[in-house]
């Protein structure tokens, strides 16, 4: 017990140190690195919201990128009509919530991979609508956001902190959820949905609620991304690759862990950047090969893998001690 509490304290200290480092970093690094870390934060948020569905509830939202796109487009349309960013962003959250409830109630009845496929369909359909509703969305031309009147150096820092805040929010929500009633409900659904329902858990409600939370976080990330990039297009923000790479990040870090998806996002994004700059033509091929290797040799993710490694070592040490 005593050892455990020390361990917990030391891991808390490490986390605080990391957080302090993240707060100081943008004042030390160049713009390129600040932007790279900002994308890591963004993918961490998307991966975190996917993990909420995938790791805790057991439903894989392959098409979750649709909320990223909806968030970005709502922010873009709202701001080009003169709304302040926060209001436009909240409209995006509202739109995502409505779509989640309308669509989730029937579709979340579908088990396992049917839900995944239905969510891909939802993304494709909304993307096609956004592409063709030229009057509202600008169609294939995309949307240009109002110019931010700040020096580029400041812009980098502002969005760095915005995304950092969003990531911390996502982590906070995750921690609150798994400790609350809804957390117990969704884990019971994951382990046995029929049993959960027969015990009186309102499964449809909890599943939809979880999806709403996941969608809202993703749509805020989309809004911030749009404002940051100052230009969005459908092929960009409704790209299914965003979901798929985020799922990959979750797998890489560790499914159903609090920090796993974030670690996965960091590893994947930095790795991708390195490959991008050294092997431009082989980029996707090398990413594919790395993915294959990770799945074959590290199937439960980096974080879980490391934990098991340490746990085994600790256990064997203990065993040695007791033998002595």
């Amino acid at each position: 017990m005593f050892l455990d509490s020390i361990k917990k304290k030391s891991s808390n200290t490490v986390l605080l140190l990391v957080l302090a480092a993240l707060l100081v970093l943008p004042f030390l690094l160049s713009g390129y690195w600040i932007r790279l870390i900002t994308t890591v934060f963004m993918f961490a948020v998307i991966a975190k919201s996917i993990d909420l569905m995938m790791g805790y509830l057991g439903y894989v939202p392959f098409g979750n990128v649709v909320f990223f796109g909806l968030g970005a487009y709502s922010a873009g349309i709202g701001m080009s009509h003169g709304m302040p960013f926060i209001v436009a962003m909240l409209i995006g959250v509202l739109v995502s919530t409505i779509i989640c409830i309308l669509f989730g109630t029937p579709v979340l009845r579908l088990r396992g991979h049917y839900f995944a496929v239905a969510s891909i369909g939802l993304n494709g359909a909304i993307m096609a609508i956004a592409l063709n509703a030229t009057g509202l969305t600008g169609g294939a031309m995309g949307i240009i956001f109002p110019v931010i009147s700040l020096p580029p150096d400041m812009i980098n820092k502002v969005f760095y902190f915005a995304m950092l805040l969003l990531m911390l929010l996502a982590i906070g929500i995750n921690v609150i959820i798994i400790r609350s009633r809804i957390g117990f409900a969704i884990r019971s659904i994951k382990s046995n949905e029929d049993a959960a329902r027969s015990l009186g858990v309102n499964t449809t409600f909890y599943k939809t609620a979880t999806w709403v939370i996941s969608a809202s976080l993703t749509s805020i990330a989309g809004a911030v991304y749009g404002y940051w990039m100052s230009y969005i297009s459908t092929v960009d923000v409704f790209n299914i690759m965003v979901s798929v790479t985020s799922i990959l990040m979750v797998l890489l870090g560790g499914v159903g862990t609090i920090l796993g998806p974030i670690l996965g996002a960091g590893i994947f994004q930095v790795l991708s950047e390195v490959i991008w700059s050294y092997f431009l033509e082989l980029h996707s091929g090398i990413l594919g090969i790395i993915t294959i290797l990770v799945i074959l040799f590290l199937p439960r993710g980096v974080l879980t893998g490391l934990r098991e490694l340490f746990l085994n070592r600790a256990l064997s040490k203990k065993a040695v001690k007791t033998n002595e």
Partner: protein
Amino acid sequence: MLFEIILNGLLLGGLYTLMGTGFSLQWGISGIINLAYGGMMVLGGYIAFALHRLINVQPLVSIVPAAVILFFLGLLIYNYLLKPTIKKGSFFVTVIMTFAIELVLENFMLLMWASDYRIITSPYSSIAFNVLGFHLPLIKALIFTLSMLGVFAVYVFMNKTTTGKSIQASALNPAGARFIGINVEKMYMYNFGIGCAIAAVAGALASNINAFSVVLAGGLLGKVFIITILGGLGNIWGAALGGITLGLVESIGTIAVGPEYNEALGLIVMVVVLVFRPRGLIGKKFWDV
């Protein structure tokens, strides 16, 4: 006019049926959502294209080498990449694995053939004849016939041969199949290979009428998804129903609301079917989950 639209839809539906059959077999029987299916179709197209260009093989004959190559590629992929993944991880890890395979395949094709659009111009591509006043190109009729023959061959194989019946048995009841001496893993592997071969045939056939490129792989995969969901899994009749429905929806939609909504229409029909009949129009319950 209406007749022309419907005929066009049916002709398109024939090819879609073949496309859907392979994917549906892989999903319904081997239990793999093969995200590399679109890439495999394009690869089939490229094989036909290369054979036609380099050694002047008749484009419709080259479906045979394309099928053989993809069949063995499928066996290798299943044996060395998918089987270990299925053993270790969850269903979705397998999906990500096929996605990684797709990335590698696409990159390979990009290096080999670049992303330019290609099309095979066969010697008979300019021939056409008249059906009740409708201009019917010979090549479309040929592709429809060959697709139907392909689907029929798969049907006969699955229902009349021992291997085919063993494959079906492995899907229905793996434990029971093992009990009577069927090597279930091997059957899944053969089934996956057959699915890949069908992808190659469909791709090689389609490359005669549509320009193709690596960048289309994702769109093709989307179509295959729609076809499979519409009809139902692991069932050739399901793929046929889904394929023909999608063909009709697309050809009617092109006239009614314009070709740019084609993809959206198909997806909307798919989502509606999923909501009201999750197992597809005629899918059987036991393939589920």
